[in-house]
Protein backbone atom coordinates (compact mmCIF):
# COMPACT_ATOMS: atom_id res chain seq x y z
CA UNK A 1 0.00 0.00 0.00
CA UNK A 2 1.43 3.39 -1.05
CA UNK A 3 1.89 5.98 1.69
CA UNK A 4 -0.15 9.18 1.59
CA UNK A 5 3.12 11.05 1.27
CA UNK A 6 4.15 9.25 -1.93
CA UNK A 7 0.62 9.36 -3.30
CA UNK A 8 0.72 13.15 -2.88
CA UNK A 9 4.06 13.38 -4.67
CA UNK A 10 2.85 11.22 -7.53
CA UNK A 11 -0.26 13.37 -7.86
CA UNK A 12 2.00 16.42 -8.12
CA UNK A 13 4.02 14.61 -10.81
CA UNK A 14 0.84 13.93 -12.81
CA UNK A 15 -0.30 17.56 -12.57
CA UNK A 16 3.16 18.90 -13.42
CA UNK A 17 3.30 16.46 -16.36
CA UNK A 18 0.13 18.02 -17.78
CA UNK A 19 1.48 21.54 -17.28
CA UNK A 20 4.76 20.56 -18.93
CA UNK A 21 2.91 18.96 -21.85
CA UNK A 22 1.06 22.24 -22.36
CA UNK A 23 4.42 23.99 -22.78
CA UNK A 24 5.74 21.16 -24.98
CA UNK A 25 2.81 21.46 -27.40
CA UNK A 26 3.48 25.17 -27.95
CA UNK A 27 7.22 24.55 -28.11
CA UNK A 28 6.60 22.06 -30.95
CA UNK A 29 5.78 25.07 -33.15
CA UNK A 30 8.94 26.86 -32.02
CA UNK A 31 7.17 29.25 -29.61
CA UNK A 32 7.90 29.62 -25.91
CA UNK A 33 5.04 30.41 -23.54
CA UNK A 34 5.79 31.63 -20.03
CA UNK A 35 2.12 32.13 -19.19
CA UNK A 36 0.68 28.63 -19.02
CA UNK A 37 0.08 28.95 -15.29
CA UNK A 38 -2.54 31.52 -16.31
CA UNK A 39 -4.44 28.88 -18.30
CA UNK A 40 -3.96 26.49 -15.37
CA UNK A 41 -5.51 29.12 -13.08
CA UNK A 42 -8.47 29.58 -15.41
CA UNK A 43 -9.00 25.80 -15.40
CA UNK A 44 -8.64 25.55 -11.63
CA UNK A 45 -11.11 28.33 -10.82
CA UNK A 46 -13.65 27.42 -13.51
CA UNK A 47 -13.65 23.71 -12.64
CA UNK A 48 -13.97 24.50 -8.94
CA UNK A 49 -16.83 26.92 -9.57
CA UNK A 50 -18.66 24.33 -11.66
CA UNK A 51 -18.25 21.49 -9.16
CA UNK A 52 -18.75 23.45 -5.91
CA UNK A 53 -21.31 26.07 -6.88
CA UNK A 54 -23.13 24.41 -9.78
CA UNK A 55 -22.81 20.77 -8.73
CA UNK A 56 -21.43 19.69 -12.10
CA UNK A 57 -19.62 16.30 -12.05
CA UNK A 58 -15.84 16.78 -12.06
CA UNK A 59 -15.13 15.07 -15.39
CA UNK A 60 -17.70 17.21 -17.17
CA UNK A 61 -16.41 20.31 -15.38
CA UNK A 62 -12.87 19.54 -16.55
CA UNK A 63 -14.05 19.16 -20.14
CA UNK A 64 -15.95 22.48 -19.97
CA UNK A 65 -12.98 24.25 -18.39
CA UNK A 66 -10.62 22.79 -21.00
CA UNK A 67 -12.90 23.99 -23.81
CA UNK A 68 -13.23 27.47 -22.28
CA UNK A 69 -9.50 27.78 -21.64
CA UNK A 70 -8.78 26.48 -25.16
CA UNK A 71 -11.05 29.16 -26.60
CA UNK A 72 -9.30 31.84 -24.53
CA UNK A 73 -5.98 30.40 -25.74
CA UNK A 74 -7.09 30.82 -29.35
CA UNK A 75 -8.31 34.39 -28.70
CA UNK A 76 -5.04 35.27 -26.95
CA UNK A 77 -3.09 33.36 -29.59
CA UNK A 78 -4.08 35.51 -32.56
CA UNK A 79 -2.54 38.77 -31.33
CA UNK A 80 0.22 37.08 -29.29
CA UNK A 81 1.52 35.00 -32.20
CA UNK A 82 2.30 38.10 -34.20
CA UNK A 83 5.24 38.17 -31.82
CA UNK A 84 8.15 35.75 -31.80
CA UNK A 85 10.87 34.48 -29.52
CA UNK A 86 11.59 36.52 -26.43
CA UNK A 87 8.80 39.01 -27.24
CA UNK A 88 6.18 36.26 -27.31
CA UNK A 89 7.62 34.85 -24.07
CA UNK A 90 7.24 38.29 -22.44
CA UNK A 91 3.68 38.71 -23.76
CA UNK A 92 2.60 35.31 -22.40
CA UNK A 93 4.28 36.09 -19.09
CA UNK A 94 2.18 39.25 -18.98
CA UNK A 95 -0.95 37.22 -19.69
CA UNK A 96 -0.18 34.82 -16.83
CA UNK A 97 0.32 37.67 -14.39
CA UNK A 98 -2.88 39.32 -15.64
CA UNK A 99 -4.89 36.16 -14.88
CA UNK A 100 -3.34 35.85 -11.41
CA UNK A 101 -4.10 39.49 -10.70
CA UNK A 102 -7.67 39.03 -11.95
CA UNK A 103 -8.39 36.20 -9.50
CA UNK A 104 -6.66 38.16 -6.73
CA UNK A 105 -9.29 40.85 -7.14
CA UNK A 106 -12.23 38.61 -8.06
CA UNK A 107 -14.09 38.42 -4.78
CA UNK A 108 -16.81 36.10 -6.15
CA UNK A 109 -14.17 33.35 -6.18
CA UNK A 110 -12.62 34.28 -2.86
CA UNK A 111 -10.10 36.87 -4.08
CA UNK A 112 -6.87 36.84 -2.07
CA UNK A 113 -8.50 34.52 0.47
CA UNK A 114 -8.74 31.71 -2.06
CA UNK A 115 -11.52 29.25 -2.85
CA UNK A 116 -12.35 25.91 -1.25
CA UNK A 117 -15.06 23.31 -0.96
CA UNK A 118 -13.82 20.97 -3.70
CA UNK A 119 -13.93 17.22 -3.11
CA UNK A 120 -10.58 15.48 -3.09
CA UNK A 121 -9.80 13.30 -6.11
CA UNK A 122 -7.84 10.08 -6.07
CA UNK A 123 -4.34 9.56 -7.44
CA UNK A 124 -5.81 7.11 -9.96
CA UNK A 125 -8.17 9.77 -11.31
CA UNK A 126 -5.34 12.28 -11.77
CA UNK A 127 -3.16 9.72 -13.50
CA UNK A 128 -5.98 8.54 -15.75
CA UNK A 129 -6.10 12.09 -17.15
CA UNK A 130 -2.33 12.50 -17.23
CA UNK A 131 -1.77 9.15 -18.95
CA UNK A 132 -4.61 9.74 -21.42
CA UNK A 133 -3.22 13.12 -22.49
CA UNK A 134 0.36 11.82 -22.62
CA UNK A 135 -0.91 8.99 -24.83
CA UNK A 136 -2.82 11.46 -27.00
CA UNK A 137 0.31 13.57 -27.44
CA UNK A 138 2.34 10.42 -28.24
CA UNK A 139 -0.19 9.45 -30.91
CA UNK A 140 -0.19 12.99 -32.31
CA UNK A 141 3.61 12.91 -32.45
CA UNK A 142 3.35 10.17 -35.07
CA UNK A 143 0.69 11.98 -37.07
CA UNK A 144 0.67 14.40 -39.98
CA UNK A 145 -0.45 17.15 -37.58
CA UNK A 146 2.79 16.93 -35.59
CA UNK A 147 4.82 17.00 -38.80
CA UNK A 148 3.07 20.28 -39.59
CA UNK A 149 3.92 21.68 -36.15
CA UNK A 150 7.57 20.70 -36.61
CA UNK A 151 7.61 22.27 -40.07
CA UNK A 152 6.46 25.58 -38.58
CA UNK A 153 9.15 25.32 -35.89
CA UNK A 154 11.92 24.49 -38.42
CA UNK A 155 11.22 27.27 -40.88
CA UNK A 156 7.98 29.20 -41.00
CA UNK A 157 8.61 30.45 -44.54
CA UNK A 158 9.38 26.97 -45.83
CA UNK A 159 6.26 25.69 -44.07
CA UNK A 160 4.16 28.32 -45.84
CA UNK A 161 5.79 27.34 -49.13
CA UNK A 162 4.63 23.74 -48.80
CA UNK A 163 1.10 25.04 -48.30
CA UNK A 164 0.73 25.08 -44.52
CA UNK A 165 -1.46 27.71 -42.90
CA UNK A 166 1.10 28.62 -40.27
CA UNK A 167 -1.17 30.99 -38.31
CA UNK A 168 -3.88 28.34 -37.87
CA UNK A 169 -1.28 25.78 -36.81
CA UNK A 170 0.29 28.07 -34.20
CA UNK A 171 -3.03 29.31 -32.85
CA UNK A 172 -4.40 25.75 -32.80
CA UNK A 173 -1.38 24.56 -30.81
CA UNK A 174 -1.85 27.46 -28.41
CA UNK A 175 -5.52 26.57 -27.91
CA UNK A 176 -4.77 22.86 -27.36
CA UNK A 177 -2.02 23.70 -24.88
CA UNK A 178 -4.34 26.07 -23.00
CA UNK A 179 -6.91 23.25 -22.72
CA UNK A 180 -4.30 20.82 -21.35
CA UNK A 181 -3.07 23.43 -18.82
CA UNK A 182 -6.70 23.99 -17.71
CA UNK A 183 -7.10 20.27 -17.00
CA UNK A 184 -3.90 20.42 -14.92
CA UNK A 185 -5.48 23.33 -13.02
CA UNK A 186 -8.78 21.52 -12.42
CA UNK A 187 -6.97 18.46 -11.12
CA UNK A 188 -4.70 20.63 -8.95
CA UNK A 189 -7.73 22.33 -7.38
CA UNK A 190 -9.42 18.99 -6.62
CA UNK A 191 -6.22 17.41 -5.33
CA UNK A 192 -5.33 20.23 -2.92
CA UNK A 193 -9.03 21.12 -2.28
CA UNK A 194 -8.03 24.76 -1.87
CA UNK A 195 -6.76 27.26 -4.42
CA UNK A 196 -5.50 30.81 -4.24
CA UNK A 197 -4.12 33.11 -6.97
CA UNK A 198 -0.55 32.54 -5.77
CA UNK A 199 -0.82 28.89 -6.88
CA UNK A 200 -0.76 30.08 -10.51
CA UNK A 201 2.11 32.52 -10.48
CA UNK A 202 5.08 32.95 -12.80
CA UNK A 203 7.06 30.34 -10.80
CA UNK A 204 4.50 27.68 -11.80
CA UNK A 205 5.00 28.54 -15.48
CA UNK A 206 8.76 28.28 -15.00
CA UNK A 207 8.31 24.81 -13.43
CA UNK A 208 6.48 23.70 -16.59
CA UNK A 209 9.22 25.02 -18.85
CA UNK A 210 11.95 23.53 -16.65
CA UNK A 211 10.31 20.08 -16.73
CA UNK A 212 10.29 20.17 -20.54
CA UNK A 213 13.87 21.41 -20.84
CA UNK A 214 15.17 18.86 -18.33
CA UNK A 215 13.21 15.89 -19.60
CA UNK A 216 13.75 16.69 -23.27
CA UNK A 217 11.95 19.18 -25.47
CA UNK A 218 11.73 17.07 -28.63
CA UNK A 219 9.59 14.20 -27.29
CA UNK A 220 6.44 14.23 -25.18
CA UNK A 221 7.84 11.56 -22.87
CA UNK A 222 10.50 14.11 -21.88
CA UNK A 223 7.82 16.02 -19.97
CA UNK A 224 7.18 12.90 -17.87
CA UNK A 225 10.87 12.45 -17.04
CA UNK A 226 11.20 16.17 -16.28
CA UNK A 227 8.14 16.18 -14.02
CA UNK A 228 9.40 13.13 -12.13
CA UNK A 229 12.79 14.76 -11.60
CA UNK A 230 11.43 18.12 -10.52
CA UNK A 231 9.08 16.62 -7.94
CA UNK A 232 11.07 13.62 -6.72
CA UNK A 233 14.65 14.85 -6.69
CA UNK A 234 14.20 17.57 -4.02
CA UNK A 235 12.38 15.00 -1.87
CA UNK A 236 15.29 12.58 -2.09
CA UNK A 237 17.69 15.36 -1.14
CA UNK A 238 15.90 16.08 2.16
CA UNK A 239 18.84 14.63 4.11
CA UNK A 240 20.76 17.75 3.04
CA UNK A 241 18.29 19.87 5.04
CA UNK A 242 18.67 23.60 4.16
CA UNK A 243 21.18 22.85 1.41
CA UNK A 244 18.89 20.63 -0.63
CA UNK A 245 17.64 23.31 -3.06
CA UNK A 246 21.18 24.58 -3.63
CA UNK A 247 22.32 21.03 -4.42
CA UNK A 248 19.19 20.46 -6.52
CA UNK A 249 19.99 23.60 -8.56
CA UNK A 250 23.59 22.44 -8.98
CA UNK A 251 22.43 19.03 -10.19
CA UNK A 252 20.12 20.64 -12.74
CA UNK A 253 22.95 22.78 -14.10
CA UNK A 254 25.28 19.77 -14.25
CA UNK A 255 22.63 17.74 -16.06
CA UNK A 256 22.09 20.45 -18.66
CA UNK A 257 25.83 20.76 -19.19
CA UNK A 258 26.06 17.05 -19.91
CA UNK A 259 22.86 16.83 -22.00
CA UNK A 260 21.75 20.19 -23.34
CA UNK A 261 18.94 18.57 -25.28
CA UNK A 262 17.43 17.13 -22.08
CA UNK A 263 17.42 13.56 -20.83
CA UNK A 264 15.30 12.20 -23.67
CA UNK A 265 15.49 13.29 -27.27
CA UNK A 266 14.16 12.20 -30.62
CA UNK A 267 17.44 10.69 -31.77
CA UNK A 268 17.46 8.41 -28.72
CA UNK A 269 14.08 7.01 -29.80
CA UNK A 270 15.36 6.65 -33.38
CA UNK A 271 18.36 4.70 -32.06
CA UNK A 272 16.07 2.24 -30.28
CA UNK A 273 13.84 1.93 -33.37
CA UNK A 274 16.97 1.22 -35.43
CA UNK A 275 18.19 -1.41 -32.96
CA UNK A 276 14.78 -3.05 -33.04
CA UNK A 277 14.64 -3.16 -36.83
CA UNK A 278 18.27 -4.29 -37.18
Amino acid sequence: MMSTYYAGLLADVGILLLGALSVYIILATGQLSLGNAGFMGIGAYLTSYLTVTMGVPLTLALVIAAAASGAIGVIIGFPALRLRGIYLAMATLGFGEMVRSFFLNFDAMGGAGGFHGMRHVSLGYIWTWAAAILLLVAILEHSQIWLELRAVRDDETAAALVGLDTTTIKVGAFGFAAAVAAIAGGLFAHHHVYIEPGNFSFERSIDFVLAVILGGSTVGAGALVGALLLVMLPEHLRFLADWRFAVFGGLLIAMLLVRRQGILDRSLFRFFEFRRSA
Partner: protein
Amino acid sequence: MLEIRNLHVSYGAISAVRGVDLDIAVGEIVALVGANGAGKTTVARAIAGLLPYQGEIRYAGRLLKPNSAERNLRLGVALVPEGRGILSSMTVGENLLMGLYTRIDRDQAAADLADVQSRFPILAERRDTMASLLSGGEQQMLAIARALLSKPKLLLLDEPSLGLAPKMTDFVFEMVLRLRDEGLTVLLVEQKARQALKIAGRAYLMETGRVLTSGPARELLEDHVLANAFLGAGASKA
Protein backbone atom coordinates in the same frame (compact mmCIF):
# COMPACT_ATOMS: atom_id res chain seq x y z
CA MET B 1 0.94 32.72 -67.75
CA LEU B 2 2.26 35.38 -65.34
CA GLU B 3 1.86 39.13 -65.72
CA ILE B 4 3.34 41.58 -63.26
CA ARG B 5 2.46 45.22 -63.54
CA ASN B 6 3.94 48.10 -61.57
CA LEU B 7 5.13 45.94 -58.66
CA HIS B 8 6.33 47.84 -55.62
CA VAL B 9 7.69 46.17 -52.48
CA SER B 10 9.07 47.96 -49.45
CA TYR B 11 10.74 46.76 -46.27
CA GLY B 12 9.74 49.55 -43.91
CA ALA B 13 11.17 52.76 -45.32
CA ILE B 14 13.39 50.91 -47.79
CA SER B 15 11.95 50.48 -51.26
CA ALA B 16 13.26 47.13 -52.56
CA VAL B 17 11.29 46.84 -55.79
CA ARG B 18 10.06 49.91 -57.72
CA GLY B 19 7.61 49.59 -60.56
CA VAL B 20 8.61 46.23 -62.01
CA ASP B 21 6.74 44.86 -65.05
CA LEU B 22 7.44 41.26 -65.99
CA ASP B 23 5.78 38.61 -68.18
CA ILE B 24 6.27 34.87 -68.38
CA ALA B 25 4.65 32.74 -71.08
CA VAL B 26 3.70 29.09 -70.64
CA GLY B 27 6.58 26.66 -71.06
CA GLU B 28 9.47 29.13 -71.07
CA ILE B 29 12.44 29.66 -68.81
CA VAL B 30 12.78 33.29 -67.84
CA ALA B 31 15.93 34.41 -66.06
CA LEU B 32 15.87 37.24 -63.56
CA VAL B 33 19.44 38.40 -63.14
CA GLY B 34 21.25 41.28 -61.50
CA ALA B 35 23.67 42.14 -58.78
CA ASN B 36 23.17 41.38 -55.11
CA GLY B 37 20.48 43.67 -53.68
CA ALA B 38 18.87 44.36 -57.06
CA GLY B 39 15.49 43.08 -55.84
CA LYS B 40 15.36 39.70 -57.64
CA THR B 41 14.57 37.62 -54.56
CA THR B 42 11.94 40.14 -53.47
CA VAL B 43 10.16 39.79 -56.83
CA ALA B 44 10.20 35.97 -56.51
CA ARG B 45 8.89 36.11 -52.93
CA ALA B 46 6.14 38.53 -53.93
CA ILE B 47 5.01 36.17 -56.72
CA ALA B 48 5.01 33.25 -54.25
CA GLY B 49 2.79 35.28 -51.90
CA LEU B 50 5.27 35.65 -49.07
CA LEU B 51 5.28 39.45 -48.98
CA PRO B 52 2.94 42.40 -48.90
CA TYR B 53 3.20 44.44 -52.11
CA GLN B 54 1.53 47.04 -54.27
CA GLY B 55 0.79 46.55 -57.95
CA GLU B 56 -0.71 43.65 -59.81
CA ILE B 57 0.39 40.05 -60.20
CA ARG B 58 -1.83 37.92 -62.45
CA TYR B 59 -1.30 34.20 -62.78
CA ALA B 60 -3.28 32.28 -65.40
CA GLY B 61 -5.70 35.22 -65.53
CA ARG B 62 -6.27 35.31 -61.75
CA LEU B 63 -5.21 38.19 -59.60
CA LEU B 64 -2.84 36.93 -56.89
CA LYS B 65 -3.07 38.40 -53.43
CA PRO B 66 -0.18 39.51 -51.24
CA ASN B 67 0.68 37.30 -48.24
CA SER B 68 -1.12 34.27 -49.65
CA ALA B 69 1.60 31.65 -50.14
CA GLU B 70 -0.71 28.74 -49.37
CA ARG B 71 -3.32 29.85 -51.93
CA ASN B 72 -0.68 30.56 -54.59
CA LEU B 73 0.81 27.09 -54.12
CA ARG B 74 -2.60 25.51 -54.56
CA LEU B 75 -3.00 27.54 -57.76
CA GLY B 76 0.27 26.07 -59.05
CA VAL B 77 3.01 28.56 -58.10
CA ALA B 78 5.86 26.94 -56.16
CA LEU B 79 8.99 28.65 -54.88
CA VAL B 80 12.30 26.99 -54.06
CA PRO B 81 13.65 29.73 -51.81
CA GLU B 82 17.16 31.06 -51.55
CA GLY B 83 18.88 28.98 -48.86
CA ARG B 84 16.67 26.00 -49.86
CA GLY B 85 14.18 26.12 -46.98
CA ILE B 86 14.91 22.59 -45.84
CA LEU B 87 12.95 21.43 -42.80
CA SER B 88 16.05 20.54 -40.86
CA SER B 89 14.62 18.52 -37.96
CA MET B 90 12.94 16.16 -40.42
CA THR B 91 14.26 13.29 -42.46
CA VAL B 92 14.50 13.44 -46.24
CA GLY B 93 11.37 11.26 -46.43
CA GLU B 94 9.42 13.57 -44.12
CA ASN B 95 10.47 16.61 -46.17
CA LEU B 96 9.17 14.91 -49.30
CA LEU B 97 5.96 14.03 -47.51
CA MET B 98 5.48 17.70 -46.69
CA GLY B 99 5.78 18.43 -50.40
CA LEU B 100 2.61 16.40 -50.90
CA TYR B 101 0.70 18.43 -48.32
CA THR B 102 -1.60 20.21 -50.76
CA ARG B 103 -2.28 17.10 -52.87
CA ILE B 104 -5.69 15.49 -52.64
CA ASP B 105 -5.19 12.99 -55.51
CA ARG B 106 -3.54 10.34 -53.32
CA ASP B 107 -2.85 7.70 -55.98
CA GLN B 108 -1.30 10.20 -58.36
CA ALA B 109 0.64 11.76 -55.46
CA ALA B 110 2.16 8.36 -54.62
CA ALA B 111 3.14 7.92 -58.28
CA ASP B 112 4.68 11.41 -58.32
CA LEU B 113 6.67 10.62 -55.18
CA ALA B 114 8.07 7.53 -56.90
CA ASP B 115 8.82 9.63 -60.00
CA VAL B 116 10.67 12.30 -58.01
CA GLN B 117 12.70 9.61 -56.23
CA SER B 118 13.69 8.14 -59.58
CA ARG B 119 14.78 11.59 -60.79
CA PHE B 120 16.85 12.07 -57.64
CA PRO B 121 17.94 8.55 -56.61
CA ILE B 122 20.12 9.90 -53.82
CA LEU B 123 16.98 11.14 -52.05
CA ALA B 124 15.48 7.65 -52.14
CA GLU B 125 18.74 6.19 -50.81
CA ARG B 126 18.88 8.74 -47.99
CA ARG B 127 15.17 8.72 -47.19
CA ASP B 128 15.76 8.14 -43.46
CA THR B 129 18.66 10.59 -43.15
CA MET B 130 18.12 13.90 -41.37
CA ALA B 131 17.79 16.58 -44.04
CA SER B 132 20.27 18.79 -42.18
CA LEU B 133 22.97 16.15 -42.75
CA LEU B 134 22.72 16.32 -46.56
CA SER B 135 25.35 18.12 -48.61
CA GLY B 136 24.46 21.48 -50.17
CA GLY B 137 23.78 19.87 -53.54
CA GLU B 138 21.61 17.16 -52.03
CA GLN B 139 19.67 19.75 -50.07
CA GLN B 140 19.05 21.67 -53.29
CA MET B 141 17.79 18.48 -54.93
CA LEU B 142 15.51 17.91 -51.95
CA ALA B 143 14.18 21.47 -52.14
CA ILE B 144 13.43 21.12 -55.86
CA ALA B 145 11.95 17.64 -55.40
CA ARG B 146 9.69 18.89 -52.59
CA ALA B 147 8.49 21.77 -54.75
CA LEU B 148 7.82 19.44 -57.69
CA LEU B 149 5.64 17.21 -55.50
CA SER B 150 3.13 20.05 -55.15
CA LYS B 151 2.63 19.65 -58.94
CA PRO B 152 3.38 23.28 -59.84
CA LYS B 153 2.79 24.85 -63.22
CA LEU B 154 5.14 27.74 -62.49
CA LEU B 155 8.35 26.97 -60.61
CA LEU B 156 10.26 29.88 -59.07
CA LEU B 157 13.89 28.96 -58.40
CA ASP B 158 15.72 31.48 -56.24
CA GLU B 159 19.51 31.19 -56.49
CA PRO B 160 19.52 27.41 -57.00
CA SER B 161 23.27 27.39 -57.62
CA LEU B 162 24.15 29.29 -54.45
CA GLY B 163 26.94 27.50 -52.59
CA LEU B 164 27.06 24.57 -55.02
CA ALA B 165 30.11 23.03 -56.68
CA PRO B 166 30.30 23.67 -60.46
CA LYS B 167 29.35 20.06 -61.25
CA MET B 168 26.27 20.27 -59.06
CA THR B 169 25.34 23.64 -60.57
CA ASP B 170 25.46 22.03 -64.03
CA PHE B 171 23.24 19.21 -62.78
CA VAL B 172 20.68 21.66 -61.41
CA PHE B 173 20.61 23.69 -64.64
CA GLU B 174 20.26 20.52 -66.73
CA MET B 175 17.36 19.53 -64.48
CA VAL B 176 15.72 22.91 -65.13
CA LEU B 177 16.01 22.33 -68.89
CA ARG B 178 14.47 18.86 -68.54
CA LEU B 179 11.58 20.28 -66.51
CA ARG B 180 10.99 22.93 -69.17
CA ASP B 181 10.95 20.21 -71.84
CA GLU B 182 8.28 18.44 -69.79
CA GLY B 183 6.11 21.55 -69.92
CA LEU B 184 6.96 23.33 -66.68
CA THR B 185 7.35 27.11 -66.73
CA VAL B 186 10.36 28.38 -64.78
CA LEU B 187 11.45 31.74 -63.38
CA LEU B 188 15.13 31.40 -62.62
CA VAL B 189 16.52 33.99 -60.22
CA GLU B 190 20.32 33.84 -60.42
CA GLN B 191 23.44 35.74 -59.64
CA LYS B 192 25.41 33.43 -61.93
CA ALA B 193 23.94 35.39 -64.79
CA ARG B 194 25.93 33.88 -67.65
CA GLN B 195 24.86 30.34 -66.87
CA ALA B 196 21.26 31.39 -66.31
CA LEU B 197 21.14 33.25 -69.63
CA LYS B 198 22.49 30.20 -71.45
CA ILE B 199 19.47 28.10 -70.53
CA ALA B 200 16.79 30.82 -70.45
CA GLY B 201 14.66 31.90 -73.38
CA ARG B 202 14.17 35.44 -72.13
CA ALA B 203 15.66 37.45 -69.32
CA TYR B 204 15.19 40.52 -67.18
CA LEU B 205 18.14 42.41 -65.82
CA MET B 206 17.45 44.21 -62.54
CA GLU B 207 19.33 46.97 -60.83
CA THR B 208 18.39 48.73 -57.55
CA GLY B 209 14.78 47.58 -57.59
CA ARG B 210 14.03 48.31 -61.24
CA VAL B 211 14.15 46.36 -64.49
CA LEU B 212 17.07 47.82 -66.40
CA THR B 213 16.46 45.90 -69.57
CA SER B 214 14.80 42.73 -70.83
CA GLY B 215 14.74 40.64 -73.96
CA PRO B 216 15.85 37.33 -75.45
CA ALA B 217 18.50 35.84 -73.17
CA ARG B 218 20.98 35.31 -76.01
CA GLU B 219 20.79 38.99 -77.01
CA LEU B 220 21.57 40.08 -73.46
CA LEU B 221 24.43 37.62 -73.35
CA GLU B 222 25.86 39.00 -76.60
CA ASP B 223 25.45 42.66 -75.68
CA HIS B 224 29.06 43.58 -74.88
CA VAL B 225 28.23 46.71 -72.88
CA LEU B 226 25.68 44.93 -70.69
CA ALA B 227 27.76 41.80 -70.39
CA ASN B 228 30.81 43.67 -69.21
CA ALA B 229 28.85 45.88 -66.84
CA PHE B 230 26.54 43.33 -65.25
CA LEU B 231 27.34 39.77 -66.22
CA GLY B 232 31.04 39.57 -65.44
CA ALA B 233 34.04 39.62 -67.73
CA GLY B 234 34.01 37.25 -70.67
CA ALA B 235 30.26 36.93 -70.69
CA SER B 236 29.95 37.72 -74.35
CA LYS B 237 32.39 34.97 -75.25
CA ALA B 238 30.10 32.30 -73.81
